[in-house]
């Protein structure tokens, strides 16, 4: 049982405090003076002392000095009702000493006693709130600084922008940032080309007249017209069927469109920000986007860095997500230094979106006693392994099995940070076989 000593000359206080602490399952002793307290400490060991600052036979600080000579130093909570004393104690900043102020509630006792148990888990230092760039982007890393510079430059021009980046890097957020930096008052109009069926895409982009097709009960403005004199964001542009692309080219080139079922041309003047999660070489090689369209859309291409290339931003992002979750739920859950370090060792194939979801889950699972998030044992997303394989495979007909095997071992090893036993287990071979293979390949 944890032993607690209360040192205070106010008998009414010690009486009620000891009753409360006994109900909370602590073994409580009371002293009403310094001398009494010293005697208690001579005969018994206490885990925790609640200590009044002003005692009839001296200051509480004398008892602190006395405990410093003891073999097992108890933790001390000073009790004060005086604001001046509070600031003196804060200035002392002694390692195993804190203070509570009167009027005292049960929770104050619990916090003082529980804090000791968790003091080993250092809560990551709360810096100032993460700075938001363009009111939506977070991160101070070098790749992000370059990105901010590009956004600033391009926002003031009228050039069409193509945002290139892996899934989850925040392409729509960057589009929003460009919109903010441009100073255009009209809201950003956004649509996802990948989410539209082939039949609906023309109607969504260019609009339709009443009766243009079955179900077209009223006329509708397309996104180009909605974004007139503003900015249109076309997400997943590379998922647009290639036979639809000539229509898009006409709008981009002539700034005119013809809604479905109409004969009249409509003039539109809007700037287009488009986005894709495919690489430029993939777009070119696989004939995903017509060359003429590509050059129209990518007057100013911007590559958004994946999270693994800006790991120094993870801390700020985690704090930002936690701040928002805390705000929504009125809690104060934090992240520890160790947890941040662990988050930084992971590669985040799903990028910021994956990080956001991991933090949300860890927040739901939070340890309420310690006020800390609880991360999953395994950060691996079901897609990460598969994705790494895809990223590294470069499989082509005619490759030798040996080459593919070599690549597979390499990917597996990097996945488990070089742990050969784990890698062998994942590959379904014995550790000995793995060592033999590695020897044969010259250790990869």
């Amino acid at each position: 049982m944890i032993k607690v000593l209360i040192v205070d000359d106010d008998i009414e206080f010690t009486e009620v405090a000891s009753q409360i602490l006994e109900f909370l399952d602590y073994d409580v002793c009371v002293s009403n003076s310094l001398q009494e307290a010293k005697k208690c400490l001579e005969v018994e060991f206490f885990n925790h002392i609640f200590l009044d600052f002003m005692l009839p036979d001296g200051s509480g600080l004398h008892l602190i000095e006395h405990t410093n000579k003891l073999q097992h130093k108890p933790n001390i909570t000073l009790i004060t009702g005086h604001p001046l004393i509070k600031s003196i104690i804060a200035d002392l900043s002694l390692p195993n000493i804190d203070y509570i102020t009167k009027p005292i509630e049960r929770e104050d006792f619990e916090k003082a006693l529980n804090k000791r148990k968790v003091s080993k888990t250092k809560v990551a230092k709360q810096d100032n709130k993460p700075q938001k760039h363009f009111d939506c982007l977070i991160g101070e890393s070098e790749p992000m600084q370059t990105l901010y510079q590009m956004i600033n430059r391009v926002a003031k021009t009228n050039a069409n922008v193509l945002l290139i980046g892996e899934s989850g890097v925040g392409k729509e957020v960057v589009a929003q940032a460009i919109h903010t930096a441009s100073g255009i008052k009209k809201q950003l109009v956004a649509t996802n080309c990948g989410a539209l069926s082939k039949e609906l895409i023309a109607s969504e982009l260019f609009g339709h007249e009443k009766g243009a097709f079955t179900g077209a009960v009223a006329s509708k403005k397309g996104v180009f017209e909605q974004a007139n004199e503003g900015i249109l964001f076309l997400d997943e542009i590379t998922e647009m069927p290639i036979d639809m692309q000539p229509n898009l080219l006409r709008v981009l080139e002539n700034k005119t469109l013809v809604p479905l079922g109409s004969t009249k041309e409509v003039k539109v003047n809007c700037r287009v920000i488009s986005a894709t999660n495919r690489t430029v070489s993939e777009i070119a090689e696989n004939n995903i986007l017509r060359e003429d369209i590509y050059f129209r859309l990518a007057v100013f291409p911007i590559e958004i860095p994946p999270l693994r290339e800006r790991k120094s931003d993870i801390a700020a992002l985690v704090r930002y997500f936690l701040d928002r979750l805390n705000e929504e739920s009125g809690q104060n859950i934090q992240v520890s230094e160790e947890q941040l370090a662990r988050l930084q060792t992971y590669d985040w194939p799903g990028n910021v979106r994956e990080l956001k979801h991991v933090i949300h889950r860890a927040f739901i699972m939070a340890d309420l006693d310690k006020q800390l998030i609880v991360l999953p044992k395994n950060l691996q997303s079901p897609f990460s392994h598969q994705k790494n394989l895809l990223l590294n495979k470069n499989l082509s007909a005619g490759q030798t099995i040996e080459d593919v095997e070599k690549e597979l071992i390499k990917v597996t090893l990097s996945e488990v940070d070089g742990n050969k036993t784990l890698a062998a287990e994942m590959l379904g071979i014995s550790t000995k076989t793995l060592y033999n293979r590695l020897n044969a390949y010259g250790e990869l």
Partner: protein
Amino acid sequence: MQNKDKHPDLNKKVHDARTPLNQISMQAELIKILIESNGSAEKLTEAAQKIIDNCQKCSHSLQQISEALRQ
């Protein structure tokens, strides 16, 4: 600040008022705990009585502060 300079003992009086307030707060906590743990009616009454007594003490201290300010 000015008031404090005029009445140097005001701080002490405020401190005196805080002592019964602390008692009220802690006795109320004790009542909550007693209810949680099915404590005896006798103990509950005792804690409630202490709250009432300390309200009187607090009121007395506030009265003294008020008088000190009027001087």
